[in-house]
């Protein structure tokens, strides 16, 4: 008997795959020097892939395929939409950057979209094999993209560091998964593993196996101590790729963690809660303290994103005691983090077009030379710092809510660490804002800055999200609520 295909459930992936092939073929047949047609084609493809996501959302029924290994529920749909939107903005941000550089154009978008396909697959993956394969599809194209500036040794370095640490952590993860497979009596489906975990008679090896599995995702979300690649890779990669890594790829890792924790290991909380607790605390603290000392904006944002990753891990570390609130907090935080971080990187790209510099120094006087960029950058940074009425505060709020709902000494301690870290974080975000507004620009930068159309759209989208969510979170709280699959 052949399995019956529910094509509707697979439609987003299928459409995106089609778009990927179209981009590739179009680039072969009609070589395009500026890469602009390809970028338009890519963004169009991504938007078309959003259509089946919408129809699935309207339809609303949960779909489970292939014996439960591929599930389309509200959680999957919400995150598919998120990834496609992030991909769309990333393409917008990349268009002029890639077009003006000495790069392959068509292949760039091809690889970017392949990685996004991996993310879509990840949202629905409910077995270890699918999760592993999706994670690799997210990673491998980005290994290449990190080294896309082939003649720049820094870009090469970014690629090899990302690649090596990535491959090593996925080896560790695979080792862990193989142990889980054996311990659970030959189960790869998360639901079956969940039953095994609930039985509670696993040997200590099970706890270690869960930890080893988490390492692969901890790498993706650049959680300390698996974060070392992140600052170097972020700095060396082409900036649009960095934006993609810090938002989409990271979110991919979080989706994987959410899935394996909630659908698989949930009952074995004594094995994963302490690990995530430690990762969260270490990521926030190390990320923030190191960010204080950075002079390069991308590097600072890299450490900031390590720290933000720590904040997102906080609710997960208390998930057992407040399952719903934590799940919601992670999803909401991811969405908001995506908007504000993409926005910040879009500004970095726009500013670097003019100053040709990634140093924080080059932001001096941005408020005078390019007031709009100055305002936007300040807004994104202050949102990252969690200042109302920008979206970041809501993200922090739901995070703290989960912590307090969980209660207990461990949760509260983590909450206090998070609170202290929000304060530390403020110092370096405000430091950049201070340069923007309180310093004089370098003399050669007089005259207005030109921001290309695509980049403008990307900036406007991020800014709108940051502002609207910040002012009226009700709009958005529903999404988080709906996404909880419990």
């Amino acid at each position, binding site marked *: 008997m052949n399995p019956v295909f529910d094509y509707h459930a697979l439609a987003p992936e299928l459409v995106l795959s089609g778009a990927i092939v179209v981009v590739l073929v179009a680039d072969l047949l009609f070589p395009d020097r500026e890469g602009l047609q390809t970028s338009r084609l890519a963004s169009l493809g991504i938007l078309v892939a959003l259509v089946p996501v919408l129809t699935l959302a309207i339809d609303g029924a949960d779909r489970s395929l292939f014996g439960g290994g591929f599930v389309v529920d509200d959680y999957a749909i919400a995150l598919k939409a998120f990834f496609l939107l992030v991909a769309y903005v990333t393409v917008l941000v990349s268009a002029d950057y890639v077009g003006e550089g000495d790069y392959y154009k068509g292949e760039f978008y091809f690889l970017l979209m392949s990685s996004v396909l991996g993310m879509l697959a990840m949202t629905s993956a409910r077995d270890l094999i699918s999760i592993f394969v999706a994670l690799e599809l997210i990673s491998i194209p980005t290994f290449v993209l990190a080294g896309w500036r082939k003649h720049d040794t820094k870009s090469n370095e970014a690629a*090899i*560091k990302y690649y*090596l*640490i990535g491959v*090593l*952590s996925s080896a*560790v993860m695979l080792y862990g998964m193989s142990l889980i497979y054996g311990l659970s009596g030959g189960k790869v489906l998360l639901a079956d593993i969940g039953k095994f975990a609930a039985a509670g008679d696993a040997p*200590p090896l099970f*706890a*270690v196996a869960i*930890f*080893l599995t988490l*390492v692969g995702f901890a790498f993706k979300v650049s959680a300390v*101590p*698996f974060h*070392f*690649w992140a*600052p*170097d890779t972020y700095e060396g990669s082409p900036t649009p790729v960095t934006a993609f890594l810090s938002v989409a790829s990271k979110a991919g890792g979080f989706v994987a963690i959410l899935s394996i924790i909630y659908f698989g290991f949930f009952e074995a909380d*004594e*094995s994963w809660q*302490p*690990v995530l607790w*430690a990762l969260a605390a270490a990521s926030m603290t*190390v990320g923030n*303290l*190191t*960010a*204080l*000392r950075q002079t390069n904006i991308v590097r600072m944002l890299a450490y900031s994103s390590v720290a933000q990753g720590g904040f997102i891990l906080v609710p997960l570390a208390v998930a057992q005691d407040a399952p*719903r*609130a934590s799940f*919601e907090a992670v999803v909401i935080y991811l969405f908001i983090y995506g908007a504000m971080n993409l926005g910040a990187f879009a500004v970095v790209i726009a500013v670097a077009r003019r100053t040709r510099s990634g140093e924080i120094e080059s932001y001096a006087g941005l408020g005078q030379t390019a007031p709009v960029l100055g305002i936007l950058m300040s807004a994104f940074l202050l949102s990252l710092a969690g*200042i*109302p*009425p920008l979206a970041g505060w809501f993200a922090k709020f*739901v995070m*703290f*809510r989960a912590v*307090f709902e969980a209660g207990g000494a461990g949760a509260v301690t983590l909450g206090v660490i998070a*609170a*202290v870290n*929000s*304060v*530390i974080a*403020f*110092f370096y975000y*405000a430091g950049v804002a*201070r340069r923007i*507004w*309180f*310093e*004089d620009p370098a003399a050669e930068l007089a005259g207005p800055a030109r921001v290309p159309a695509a980049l403008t759209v990307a900036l406007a989208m991020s800014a709108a999200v940051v502002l609207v969510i910040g002012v*009226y*979170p*009700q*709009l958005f*709280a529903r999404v*988080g*609520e709906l996404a909880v699959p419990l």
Partner: protein
Amino acid sequence: MLRNAWLIPLLPALSFVAILLVGKRLPRRGAELGVGAVGASFVLACVAAWQWIDRVEGATGKSEGLRAFGKGVLGGEGGEGGEHAEVAVAPVTRGFTWWQNGNVEFNVGIAIDGLTVMMLFVVTLVSFLVHVYSTSYMEGDRRFTHFYALLSLFTASMLLLVVADNTIQLLVGWELVGLCSFVLIGHWWEEKPNADAAVKAFLTTRVGDVGLMIGIIVLFFAAGTFDIQAINAQAVEGEIGHTLLVVASACLLGGIIGKSGQFPLHTWLPDAMAGPTPVSALIHAATMVVAGVYLGARLYPVFFEGFSIDGGTINVMALIGGTTIIIGAALAFVQNDIKKVLAYSTISQLGYMVMGLGVGAWVAAVFHLFTHAFFKALLFLGAGSVSHSGSHHSFDMKADMGGLRKFMPVTFWTFMIGSLALAGIIPFAGFWSKDEILATAGQNEFTFFLVVGLVGAFMTAAYMTRCVYLTFFGEYRGHGEPHESPRAITVPLIVLAGFSVLAGLVNASALEIEKFKEWVEPTVAFPALEHPEFELAGAALALAVALLGILVSYAYWFRNLGPHGITARNPLARAGYTFLENKYYLDALYENVIVGSIKGAIARASYWTNQRVIDGAVNGVATGAAQVGRFAYDVLDQKAVDGAVNGLAVSTGQTGGLLRYVQSGRVQRYALMLFASVALLSLALFVFSN
């Protein structure tokens, strides 16, 4: 109007947007929008105040006959305290659900009661006058329009904070106020000190804000709501555990300390003088710094129960306030910058308010907030007027002022009124409110704080006399051509002077007027407070102390008595060389001494007598105070507090440096750490799961 009080913050908010959009194209470059909107808000606030008073009076009137039914019927939750049984006038509330998350609802709404109405009145009035004043003061400034836009937003944020019926909205207003003050203090950011001051103000208050945030979260989880009324009610009813209340109130107190410039987070306030003077007036009188005191007053039941204010003889809140009174006043002695004198004086006065809250003198503390707003705004605007028209944009009293009495009569007289009010001289506003704080402290047996308050009163009177002397008396030492300020500046001064004289009479306990208490003190969800009877002896003592302060200072500065020689050996002022190098001043002093001593036997005899008789007291007190001030400034303020703040920054920075070192750049080093973590964590999990 009470139900529509949301219009009051909305108008300035709209004017902020409007000024940003079209301000530059208007004839007065946006000022007219700001003045108009805030003026309208002021009118609305007056209407609201009138309606509230009407409501309270109406309720009290009706209650006379109904009291026979027993206080339980109408007395509500508030009326547990025996003779304190009054009619409960519930706040007027209005709101809607902003957003909902799980089972938590967030509301946007307003809650209008006496305290709110009082704040609305004060904020809109002072802000309106500052708006008017700035049309002249800021004329020709290159960011004139921006200045007005932010001034409007600043006012709107403060009003938003004041009308908030829930803690989240209050927090939003609070943060916006901080943000606006940051930008306004850094208005002239081209000069580095100004920018630094702005950053310092923002960062220092943020330290306190963390406390506020945690406090709000703790309260939320203790009370299950963000609604301020509900939280207060639960705190009064004892439905929240005492431990939680202690934690919450300690955290909230952190917010107050940061925002209201209490020791040890007061250092940002004097630096914040870098902003334009109208902004200083707004920050110090009506907005930023009183937000902390307002928070204390708004959530008073939490503090009252949390710190057991009715029980103990000492508590953190009173202690912080008391310390701040002395520290602030001592520091005010050694400043040469007129605005810094006023800044430290604000710190010290805020100390009174916080101490007042700490000793259970809620009405008195809020009343002091009310009166202080007028005379402190007056003094700041007066100082601005002096620098604008008298001292050639300088604020240095010793270098560029002196003798301005002749040139600027309006400024001088209004400044005098403000100083007398600040010093607490009858019948000016400051007397009534300060006296009441002290009286309540005495009555509630916070004797230590009573003494602290008296010492503070003495010092206040003394440093204000010095300030007035240096500014308005003696010879003119500046280099400009002093003249009176234009009307846009003097009229606000006169208005404020009027309030400084009269405002105190609203609650002049000596005259048995207690309208302020009646109108402002909440009667619902509020602890039963004791209200002191007027005591002539106490009031007389306070007055005497203040007069003594003036007298001593007068003797020192005007009559040139006391240990003046010490200035030659030990430069009294920190900017000693300015003082010494300033020929005019030295000459004047020298001439005075010489002339004074040889002008005749009587003068000489009296000089001699004074030297002998008063010297001991004057010498001891004046130099003592100055020395303490200097010590406090040099050691505590500049070294200890700033040092601690800097030290914290340096040590976190160094940790960051260490972490940077780990990031060696070698990918296999990273891999080594990855596997080391994997091995060690696996080992740990193995060990712990056995």
